[in-house]
């Protein structure tokens, strides 16, 4: 290949890793819920969207400062997560997984509908709060929003992992994921673990939503992002946190490369081909196992 533009490849790759970080973040939220409660949460994209709209409401409508807006959006999403768990998920305890799955499908429609009722179906812009100077990595230029979004995602992922590694709630989560009855009989408050995971996952998703929303724009169709997240977690193996992280970066890269070199319409084709390929080689995803893994 003569005159291949390596600089461009680097820039495209950085952009891919950037959006991959956000996939990883959303994937983490998904895996937390799946690990603890065995619920396949199809509404993960809509939970991201809700976080972004909460942020919009706090900053643009209420006129609160950015940082307060972020905190308000995170808290609002946490409450939403708790309400979803209490009203929709807990009554379904012990029901067939497919029923719970369908509940989350319905939930995503309800969330989209609610957003359209309150804020309308038009695209909205989130206030700019990230530095706008172009970032240079070596000679490669990276969009500042993607760069700082990636940093924020990495920092948040690290925080969540550390908290669950060293805080006793993480132990309770692992035990619950492994055997609910045993955990319950050993003094672990399983319903509280359930509700806690939904709260934490909703909060993580909210931050993801704020970043995604400020990189592109805000609209009720933002939840489509969740479709890619689903690919990410299946590639990684549903119950594996490292899987979600690696899967996120991988899908981000593949999307960015195909988008640039083949055209945007090939993005979905490429990610789903990746999914099919990986499932053919490793039916439980990259890191997923029959056994529950350590968080």
């Amino acid at each position, binding site marked *: 290949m003569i005159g291949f533009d390596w600089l461009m490849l680097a820039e495209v790759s950085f952009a891919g890793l950037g959006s991959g970080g956000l996939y990883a973040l959303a994937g983490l939220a998904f895996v937390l819920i799946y690990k603890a409660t065995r619920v396949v949460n199809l509404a993960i994209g809509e939970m991201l969207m809700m976080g972004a709209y909460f942020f919009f409401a706090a900053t643009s409508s209420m006129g609160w400062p950015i940082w307060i807006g972020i905190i308000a959006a995170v808290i609002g999403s946490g409450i939403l997560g708790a309400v979803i768990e209490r009203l929709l998920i807990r009554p379904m305890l012990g029901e067939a997984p497919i029923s719970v799955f369908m509940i989350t499908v319905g939930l995503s429609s309800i969330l989209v509908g609610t957003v359209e009722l309150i804020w309308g179906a038009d695209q909205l812009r989130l206030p700019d709060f990230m530095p706008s100077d172009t970032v240079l990595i070596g000679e490669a230029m990276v969009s500042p929003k993607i760069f700082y979004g990636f940093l924020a995602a990495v920092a948040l992922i690290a925080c969540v992992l550390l*908290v669950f590694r060293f*805080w*006793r*709630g993480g*132990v*309770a989560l*692992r*035990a619950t994921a*492994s*055997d609910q*009855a*045993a*955990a*319950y*009989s*050993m*003094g*672990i*408050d*399983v319903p509280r673990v359930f509700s806690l995971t939904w709260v934490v996952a909703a909060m993580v998703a909210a931050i993801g939503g704020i970043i995604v929303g400020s990189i592109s724009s805000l609209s009720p169709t933002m939840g489509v992002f969740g479709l890619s997240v689903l690919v990410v977690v299946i590639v990684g193996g549903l119950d594996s946190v490292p899987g979600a992280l690696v899967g996120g970066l991988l899908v981000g890269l593949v999307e960015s490369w195909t988008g640039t070199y083949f055209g945007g319409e090939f993005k979905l084709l490429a990610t789903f081909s990746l999914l099919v390929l990986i499932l053919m080689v490793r039916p439980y995803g990259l890191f997923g196992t029959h*056994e*529950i*893994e*350590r968080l």
Partner: protein
Amino acid sequence: MPGPTANPILEIDGVTLAFGGVTALNGVSFEVAPGTITSVIGPNGAGKTSLFNTISGFYHPGAGHIRFRGDEITRLAAPLRAKLGLARTFQNIALFRGMTVLDNIKLGRHCHLHSGVLDALLYYGRARREEMRLRADIEERIIDFLEIDHIRNAPVAALSYGLQKRVEMARALAMQPQVLMLDEPVAGMNREETEDMARFILDVREEWGVTILMVEHDMGMVMDISDHVVVLNFGEVIAEGAPADVQADPEVIRAYLGSGNVAELRHRLRQAREAA
């Protein structure tokens, strides 16, 4: 039949449990005296495991009371009962797969730790470290006592059935219970494993002063090590008392064999006694 004990550690008083139209337990009453080994026996489907699940707080009875050291615990959630000192094992082993033996046992002390991030930050003083050390000592004693030192770092999924049962018991002991509930501790074990387990159960009572309540089908073992036997059939207590009394009870013989075949049961029981 011995009269009611002065201070039972566990009282089951008229407990009734129904699933829809099916009555699993019907007015079940008995008492567990502290420091004893009490066994619940009965044919399959008699309600033994339902009774266990009710005592440990998985099911809540429609009527009746459960008292632990005189305190009403009928409505208490399972985790709180664990904190009070009720530990149990499961009929189908319920270990945390994917974790090691030691991790499983360590989780036994979970119920005694204070929860909350704030607690952990504020309360990491010397007293707490001391408490942790004490508990680690107890874990070592349990591992030693149950002879599972050689597998302490093995993942539980890789262990034989008999060893898994033993690890489950170790985990329950790590909760430092006052009452240890064993759901079929020797089911599916060979003679040698059964004898080992019977010895462990007796030693747990002697060395740790733990009261034992167990469900078991192995009549030889039940009659051998129990102080008190409760017989359930169709969700009702049909007999209770010392092993010898229960063995001779015609109602019990009928429940196990249907009518008429008394000689055969007597023979089997005698055999079991001789073998054990």
